[in-house]
């Protein structure tokens, strides 16, 4: 048997220069053991902490009664919560600090050493365990009856498959909901939150309108989901400052452009618009889009431009969508291009 095996498994100690056992530190006699006066002081300190705990409990009850929570008055909650919290904290901390202080100063502080028992079982116990396993194998025929053993392996491998299939089908099917919004050809652009339609003439240069599609306000269900997809930022810039792709030149109207407000990084609302730089900044991760250049990403982690909503003006002068967004809004996903 080599020397290493004298040690417990897992202890890769350098046995050439083992660290010597320092033994127990010399016992230091506490002041509270030496002088009755110090012991008395400690006793008073501990009792004081327990008294603080009692006072804390009383403060908590007083705070609850003295600052009742009044419906509609949020500031009442503040004092109520503050005094309840302070009181309960004092109450619990008082007990805790008192108990620890007691143990440290007055309870016996004799150092004791206890050795760990070795982790390795005795050779007899190990031999016995192997014997049991072999006996069970012989009696059950696990090794001998190959057919049973292999079909059992097969059964165990197939057993989790239904769970995988079921988990893969949890929740509603996303379908194509990620690729479409409420916008249709002719949907009017309306103001958030009032739903008042916007005339092109009202959008002066430098203006920003926060836009929802007409009809969103009256939706009975899924209103927030639809708003989260359809929210649009409407801005008018000096038409001469727009750098427009000839293919998309008719998507704007006389310098008025509409872009999805949902960041293509992880979907925060992008609405920090700077009038002169035409920068559109996302507050979450600082993705910056150049609104005058089809919302190209100029800084930050977003990977693609904000989708543009093609707009036009109807007979009455109101701004309307030419169609839905022509690409999915918001964060990119697995099969976005399909």
């Amino acid at each position: 048997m080599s020397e290493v095996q004298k040690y417990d498994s897992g202890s890769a100690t350098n046995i050439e220069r083992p660290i010597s056992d320092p033994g127990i530190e010399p016992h230091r006699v506490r002041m509270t053991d030496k002088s009755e006066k110090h012991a008395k002081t400690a006793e008073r300190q501990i009792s004081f902490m327990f008294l603080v705990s009692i006072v804390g409990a009383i403060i908590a009850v007083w705070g609850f009664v003295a600052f009742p929570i009044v419906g509609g008055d949020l500031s009442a909650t503040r004092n109520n919560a503050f005094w309840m919290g302070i009181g309960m904290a004092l109450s619990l901390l008082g007990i805790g600090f008192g108990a620890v202080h007691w143990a440290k100063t007055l309870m016996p502080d004799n150092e004791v050493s206890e050795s760990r028992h070795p982790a390795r079982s005795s050779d007899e116990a190990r031999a016995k365990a192997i014997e049991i396993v072999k006996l069970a194998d012989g009696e059950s025929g696990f090794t001998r009856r190959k057919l049973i053993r292999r079909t059992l392996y097969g059964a165990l491998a197939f057993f989790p498959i239904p769970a995988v299939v079921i988990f893969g089908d949890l929740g509603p099917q996303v379908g194509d909901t990620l690729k479409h919004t409420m916008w249709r050809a002719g949907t009017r652009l309306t103001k958030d939150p009032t739903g008042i339609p916007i005339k092109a003439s009202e959008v002066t240069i430098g203006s920003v309108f926060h836009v929802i599609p007409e009809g969103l306000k009256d939706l009975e269900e899924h209103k927030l989901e639809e708003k989260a997809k359809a929210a649009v930022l409407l801005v008018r810039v000096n038409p001469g400052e727009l750098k427009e792709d000839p293919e998309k030149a008719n998507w704007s109207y006389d310098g008025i452009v509409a872009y999805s407000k949902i960041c293509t990084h992880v979907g925060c609302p992008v609405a920090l618009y700077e009038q002169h730089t035409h920068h559109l900044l996302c507050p979450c991760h600082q993705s910056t889009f150049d609104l005058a250049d089809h919302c190209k990403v100029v800084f930050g982690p977003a990977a693609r431009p904000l989708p543009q909503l093609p707009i036009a003006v109807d007979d009455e002068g109101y701004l309307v969508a030419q169609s839905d967004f022509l690409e999915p809004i918001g964060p990119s996903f697995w099969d976005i291009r399909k």
Partner: protein
Amino acid sequence: MNPQKPMRRRPWALGVVIFLGLILSGGGYAAATQTFEAEFGSPEQVEEGRKLFLANCASCHGTNGEGAIGGPSLIGVGAASVDFQVGTGRMPGQASGPQLYKKPVQFTEEQIAAMAAYVASLAPGPAIPPEEYLRTDGDPTHGGELFRINCAMCHNAVGAGGALTEGKFAPALDGVTEKHIYEAMVTGPQNMPVFNDANLTPEDKKDIITYLKYVEENGSVGGFELGSIGPVAEGLFTWIFGLGFIIAITVWLGAKAN
């Protein structure tokens, strides 16, 4: 049937008509001039404003306010713009940079009014808002909703301000007068966009001002505000004081009594 007596024009009738006409047109003109002066300032005030403009602003904004190197054109920016920029001390600008800062006001109210009248006389633009929209007796709930939709992304939900791109920032709104808040919305100073009356009606603007003043006066209901800037300040506070407290207790627990 008696034939009607033919209408006879008396000699003095013409005189009466001319007299009445003169009174009407003259009086009307005088009245119109008065309203014009009330709205745009008297010729003397405009002239005073022009002198101040030439002495203090023209080097950047051009001798006729047409703009020059370093300063944009002021034609059509209106009296509200001048009142905001000069009234908050941002103008005259101290140094060029990403953004002009608020600083001590350099002119008296009369001088600001004169310059505003001069700039307003160049071309029509947003006027100084009437008193009725600057009171804080609007609807703070509606104002708060409008503020969160239109303003909070830059100025923070309670107007604590926030960072923008490349050194620019949206300033904190506490302590800003009602008039300057209104003027900022209607003129869009520096990189702030414009919120004209079609977007936010004067009543909406009043509600927003009411909300901001309500928040300013009532403070936070949720304990320490830590600047109202959200998770960064709160996280830092917890890391330093919360964890610091836990570490201190741990050290105390492990220390021997002496």
